[in-house]
């Protein structure tokens, strides 16, 4: 299979079940909503060491937010409910509550309830005020610029982490340009985030390492500088590989993000993209398999 001259490997991305929530962060204007959301989703590229994977899903118009102010929808993914609760509390508490003019709301109506402002309210030191409208409880926590308003609970749903595809290009510049095109297209798909910096990861990993203390290490079969040293997956003309990792609320969202991302990466003339592949562990670890050729049919 080829798209615009780019070979699509007959392979699949292997993904794993995760727990997720969507939060809506609002503020006085888009700038401050963005500050809060970016801080909250910082250092959240991989559950391996960050505790969660998080990112900005999309910008929200004032008409789309509960308090009628500019907002940002954020998705958080973890491996367990307990960890999700901890990450919400720490990240909203340290990054949203602290951000001027901010407020934070649940972004999902369905799913298992999980604390959002329920514990953060105690920052009010007894001066916090509860307001319950239409079955939703909000906490008003007095802060130095007025009040931090936070919905008491959000919703946790089953989700999927680790959808991915690899862009194999003739050089670093071509790989980066293709990845940037893919991310721009994928950011229009609801229900997904690409948690790595700029949505792109250059340090694809494999399970295990020669060092006993490491659970993951560089995916040496896709490192172009090792082509002469290992049984490389790369042909002689491949000079750089970049990966896009996708976390999504459901398989359909990841399918769609993968589809639009690959098509955008392969778009244009002289794009320098040679192959599209995907990362997996032979299919034995993750129950979700995103087959590239089926998605791109």
């Amino acid at each position, binding site marked *: 299979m080829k798209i615009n001259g780019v070979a699509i490997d007959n392979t699949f991305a292997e993904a794993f079940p995760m727990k997720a929530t969507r939060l809506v962060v609002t503020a006085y204007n888009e700038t401050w909503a963005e500050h809060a959301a970016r801080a909250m989703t910082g250092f959240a590229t991989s559950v391996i060491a960050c505790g969660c994977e998080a990112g900005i899903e999309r910008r929200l118009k004032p008409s789309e937010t509960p308090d009628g102010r500019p907002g940002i929808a954020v998705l958080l993914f973890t491996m367990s409910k307990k960890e999700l609760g901890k990450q919400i509390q720490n990240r909203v508490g340290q990054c949203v509550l602290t951000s001027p003019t901010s*407020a934070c709301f649940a972004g999902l109506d369905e799913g298992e309830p999980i604390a959002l402002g329920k514990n953060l309210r105690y920052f009010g030191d007894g001066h916090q*005020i509860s307001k*319950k*409208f239409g079955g939703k409880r*909000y906490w008003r926590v007095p802060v130095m610029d*007025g*009040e931090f*308003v936070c919905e008491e609970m959000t919703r946790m749903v089953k989700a999927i982490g680790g959808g991915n595809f690899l862009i194999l290009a003739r050089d670093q510049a071509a790989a980066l340009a293709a990845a940037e095109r893919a991310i721009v297209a994928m950011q229009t798909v609801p229900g997904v985030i690409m948690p790595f910096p700029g949505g792109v990861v250059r340090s694809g990993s494999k399970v295990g390492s020669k060092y006993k203390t490491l659970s993951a290490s560089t995916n040496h079969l896709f490192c172009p500088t090792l082509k002469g040293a290992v049984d490389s997956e790369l042909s002689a003309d491949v000079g750089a590989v970049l990966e896009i990792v996708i976390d999504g609320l459901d398989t359909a969202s990841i399918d769609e993000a993968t589809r639009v991302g690959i098509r955008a990466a392969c778009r244009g003339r002289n794009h320098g993209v040679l192959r599209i592949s995907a990362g997996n562990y032979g299919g034995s670890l993750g129950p979700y398999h995103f087959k590239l050729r089926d998605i791109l049919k």
Partner: protein
Amino acid sequence: MTRLELTLAAAPVGALDLAPLLPAALDGMTLDQVRRLRLRHGTRSSALGDLFAVNGEPGELLALRGLTSGCLRVGAGLTSGTLEVSGNPGDELGREMSGGTILVRGNAGDGVGLGMRGGLIRVQGSVGDRVGGMLPGATRGMNEGTIIVTGDAGERVGERMRRGLIAICGDSGAYTGDRMLAGTIIVLGACGPHAGAGMRRGTLLLAERPAQMPATFNPSGTFALTIMPLLAQYVVDIDRRLARRIADFSRAERWCGDMAHGGKGEILLAAAAAAGR
């Protein structure tokens, strides 16, 4: 939606207790069974068919027509369905209701939503004293739900209220929010004296500045509170006009009180009212 319509034909002797007339209670009955229902009035009881003209079919919607102030406890204990009431029902309308909707076209007596635990009451007219108040012997008033009155209300609106929303679109009498424990009361007209007396927590939103602010409330300044759009958003599905009026509170002067009772309650004066002081 099936609808049963009961029109009061004969003026009852003594107070007529209409608590048994709930949509869920009548649902599934034949019209004959409905007519044979016994209703207490004063020390006597009569068959419903002797007091009301019966039309339609029992279901989720029950319409009570031509009620007078002698008709008490309309919709008391309502849990689901809709009661449409026309006329001027008497005291304790919606007493202890926990769900469903009561819509009144006319005035209602004292104790609307007494001990209410959920649901919605809309009165397109005025009401008497102690809206959303507490039952005799109780320590708390309304504990959930929404009451909207398009006209005026009497004294002690939301007495010992614990949770929920009461909106008075006209004037309210003395002791509005009396010893309130929590919840929200909106008064869009004039508010009588002693608003928020003994208030522990909760919010009183006053569109008009009272003649005299209570001595046990302290001003904190004027703010654009983020909670106001959330309140308006909740109300917009129930009453668009009321939701628009809540925009008057987009900037509000906040008074903390009752300082003699912990000071964790608040009176919010709409910015226009605050400017008029």
